[in-house]
């Protein structure tokens, strides 16, 4: 018994300390170094944060370049698939064109009415937020994290917690800011929790990522029922970080649980707008 224990000790010691002919470091030294780096990174010291920020920026750029063959192959596949289905798409588009022509008269009227109302309220017609537009440079998922990297950072005025919009809808929030890059935590990430309001009932809830495409609605009152009209989810702004009234998605029922079908598809985000601040008088919009 003691012999086998001795053998185990000898083998472990040999595995930890032995270096091969071409190995410059032993496993023991590298494990100690990793622990040291881990403790240092968790210490939240300012020089370490600055250093990490610089490392992040450098590696994200290299990562974006090295990912280009993968992106190219994805784009090529889409190109061929699109061409294969051109005929079907053409038929569908013709039908849609007919439908749109008939709707055009109706939308012209609504547009005129909308312009008139806006003039009455004397509101700005542009976005209610001052934004910074950015491009997604890296989109790598892990089983534990759904996040993307964008090519703007603190140099563009981006700060932690700022809401990120995709085509006007909430896509996530900033969780890491470097000098020339930032990380967005997407709404479907397991760690994402956002206070929301469900319209038209005005019910408060928490939008919680579950690691799937559609996040779930939690902390709804027991008597909450989905109405006949579609329920839309907006940010409530209760956390004091996100601006209130940003559209997020529609409530869908799945196995008696309430999920939210996001307006900004987390798998299709290429360009985003980071809302820096809400413009004055935009609350009425």
């Amino acid at each position, binding site marked *: 018994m003691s012999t086998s224990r001795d053998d185990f000790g000898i083998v472990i010691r040999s595995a930890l300390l032995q270096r091969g002919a071409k190995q410059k470091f032993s496993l023991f030294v590298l494990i100690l170094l990793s622990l040291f780096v881990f403790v240092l990174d968790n210490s939240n010291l300012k020089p370490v944060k600055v250093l990490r920020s610089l*490392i992040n920026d450098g590696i994200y750029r290299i990562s974006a370049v090295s990912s280009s063959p993968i992106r190219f192959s994805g784009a090529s596949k889409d190109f061929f698939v699109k061409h294969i289905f051109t005929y079907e798409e053409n038929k569908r588009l013709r039908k849609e064109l007919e439908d749109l022509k008939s709707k055009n008269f109706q939308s012209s009227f609504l547009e005129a009415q909308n312009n008139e109302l806006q003039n009455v309220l004397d509101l700005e017609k542009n976005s209610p937020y001052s934004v910074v537009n950015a491009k997604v440079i890296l989109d*790598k998922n892990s089983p534990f994290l759904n996040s993307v990297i964008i090519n703007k950072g603190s140099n563009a005025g981006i700060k932690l917690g700022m809401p990120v919009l995709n085509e006007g809808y909430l896509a996530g929030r900033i969780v890491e800011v470097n000098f020339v890059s930032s990380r967005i935590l997407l709404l479907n990430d397991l760690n994402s929790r956002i206070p929301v309001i469900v319209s038209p009932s005005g019910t408060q809830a928490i939008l919680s990522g579950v690691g799937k495409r559609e996040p779930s609605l939690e902390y709804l009152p027991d008597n909450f029922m989905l109405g006949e009209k579609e329920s839309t989810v907006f940010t409530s702004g209760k956390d004091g970080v996100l601006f209130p009234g940003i559209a997020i998605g529609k409530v869908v029922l799945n196995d008696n649980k309430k999920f939210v079908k996001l307006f900004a598809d987390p798998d299709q985000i290429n360009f985003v707008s980071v809302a820096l601040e809400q413009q004055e008088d935009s609350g009425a919009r």
Partner: protein
Amino acid sequence: MALVLSNLKDTFFKLGPLILLIFICISEFHTQFYYWGIFTFNFQFIIIYYWVLRDPDILGYGFVFICGFINDVVLSLPLGTSALSYLFVSLVAAYVRTATVRNSLFTDWFTFLVAIIIGNFIYFFLLNKFAGADIKYTTLFYNSLFTFILYPFFWGLFEIYKKITFSRRND
């Protein structure tokens, strides 16, 4: 000239596993597929375990550490998390290499299970205790399971690769 070219080719073939590991860590290459909602596997574990066990001169511990470091930056994990996890996988591989005389697929495969459990436990423990990240146990389980199941497939591929590389070197 032909000799220089041949040496370059040999060096490239020899660096293949290292290049693959770095590429997987740094690029958008997804080993976390969500087909059927459960299929994910850790390709890095497979590469590290196989090459540290079979030919440690091809994949040095220093490179394993650097790849873990890069992986942490790309996935925004606390620095050192993946490096520690990968180094413990390497430790199991080094232990098996030292303790066994003759390796076969089955000894490799079943000892790989120990490596996966230790590697993922360290990953989970550090993320959960220090980074405060929410982790689904089921995702971790499926990840470990599919990594284990897929090992013989990649073992076969790497064996073929090794034969080609060695036959080139011995020519």
